[in-house]
């Protein structure tokens, strides 16, 4: 029975991680065309570093990911504080709508954003991409922050105002410090979401602003080059690091 259990576990994790392992492994393979293993080499990583268009796309991706994560955190945290702090008509509805945007397929959001931008005659490019990424990151931040706030004693804000804190002081000195780990986790989550996104980016960005996932996509269409393996391996490493940090922040006990 024990053997069966561990075998099953191995199967699941093998299924999940084998493709990545293969990808990472082949990113170090010196053979250019065949899937036959020749020798260990860092050539593909080197050629990545000298590819200007790839570097530019990477910088664009990082820029959009950082900015959209920060924007989503600013707006999303305020939203979470509002939903937590105030009782108003339609509060439950708003909270429900957050989950709807969270669950709705990327393609739906992508098309609707595109239609919106076209209708408003906005030129597709950096700004539309940034706005779109902020939009789909927003519910993740709000829900993460809100669920942390709801774990705290509701009387804390009352205690602060009882002790002479104004509304702003109570939020600044009590609510925000308590929510900080969740805000950071929300930021990291948004960062990876933005960095990995293909579907929405494909629709809402213009030709002069290319991001990494789209660049990879266009490279793969002409056949998988070993450089793509190396690039994907790097992206995987970054995502892994960020997800681990987010999990660490969320699981840390409130101080």
């Amino acid at each position, binding site marked *: 029975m024990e053997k069966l259990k561990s075998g099953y576990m191995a199967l699941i994790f093998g299924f999940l991680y084998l493709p990545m392992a293969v990808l990472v492994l082949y990113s170090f393979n010196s053979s250019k065309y065949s899937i036959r293993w020749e020798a260990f080499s860092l050539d593909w990583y080197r050629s990545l570093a000298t590819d200007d268009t790839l570097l530019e796309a990477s910088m664009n991706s990082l820029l959009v990911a950082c900015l959209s994560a920060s924007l989503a955190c600013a707006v999303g945290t305020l939203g979470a504080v509002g939903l937590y702090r105030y009782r108003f008509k339609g509060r439950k509805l708003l909270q429900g709508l957050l989950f709807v945007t969270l669950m709705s397929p990327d393609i739906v959001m992508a098309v609707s954003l595109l239609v919106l931008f076209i209708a408003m005659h906005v030129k597709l490019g950096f700004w539309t991409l940034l706005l779109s990424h902020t939009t789909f990151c927003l519910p993740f931040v709000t829900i993460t922050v809100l669920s942390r706030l709801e774990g*705290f*004693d509701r*009387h*804390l804000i*009352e*205690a*602060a*105002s*009882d*002790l*002479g*804190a*104004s509304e702003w*002081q109570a939020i600044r*000195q*009590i609510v925000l*410090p*308590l929510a900080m780990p969740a805000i950071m986790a929300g930021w990291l989550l948004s960062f990876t979401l933005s960095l990995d996104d293909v579907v929405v980016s494909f629709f809402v960005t213009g030709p002069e602003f290319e991001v990494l996932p789209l660049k990879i996509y266009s490279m793969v269409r002409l056949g998988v080059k070993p450089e793509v393996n190396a690039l994907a391996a790097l992206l995987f490493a970054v995502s892994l690091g960020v997800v681990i940090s987010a999990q660490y922040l969320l699981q840390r006990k*409130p*101080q």
Partner: protein
Amino acid sequence: MKPVVEFLAITKSYGANTVLRNLDLTIAEGEFLTLLGPSGCGKTTLLRLLAGFERPDSGEILLDGEPVNALPPDQRNVNTVFQSYALFPHLSVFDNVAFGLRMKKIPGKDLQERVEQALAAVDLPEFGTRKPRQLSGGQQQRVALARALVNRPRVLLLDEPLSALDSKLRKSMQMTLKTLQRSVGITFVFVTHDQEEALSMSDRVVVMRDGRIEQIGGPREIYEKPASLFVAQFVGESNLLEGVITHRLDATSLAAKVEGLDCVLRQTHTYRTGDRFNVLLRPEDLHLVDPSDLSARLRGQLVEQIYKGMTLDCVVELDSGKRLFASEFFDQEEHALDFQVGQRVGLSWVGGRERVLK
């Protein structure tokens, strides 16, 4: 005595649920006042109205003679100790206590001194650098107390602060609170549903029920002269006998029958013939005697004896089937011990200990 707080005709509802009904209450300077009542009687709401967390639907609240209805909590000179303590988990004990002073922009040296004094007053002088989660429940409770008292409020509001503590700690915190209140001279308004706590700590007790005040009085008055059946039953153990007025004797006295016993009521109540009433007898006022004893007013069968250490609690079933409780203290004559369960006994009490309630 000068009033610190006045509630004038306060009404408060949540939706269709009316929590306070046209309530008037005056709180005097420096007193320890307890709001006592079952859950849902409005006692916590009254406290929250005074703290400023809720607004009354109608009526006025005066603090030092000034209306405070429109003032938010941060502009009222009252502080609250919450049932859950509500200590800020990310701040040290020192910073928790200093929070109110920092909001008032008290300068550093003065602030340091006052926080240290407050922590010393609650017996936690060395705990400033700890975080709340590193403290026991009783210690957290005392930090919450220091955090409120350090602001020198006009009134300190305590919302069932002892309910989370075990009984031994509770007793010692009751003592601490009482001594602290005497030494700082601040008016305390204490909310509890525990009648023993209310009686042992307060200068005055306000018994509440369904958003109204049933009785206000000193602990002794509340216990010995309850104004209503509700107060009698809520505060302390009680035996209730039903009586009926048989006829009028003269201007101040009435003839009545209680448990088949003829008696004379000297009451100013406006009873008429045929009216029913209740007689309250506290268990400690009843004494077991021999059924043939002249002092025996009621007779019945001893059905149970419970040894409680300090007292011996007896249950006597009267001929009517009604059960009465009697607590005998051992420091008195030990005659209760002479009786056996199943035996016929008489019950006596010192005249005047009974209380007639409508």
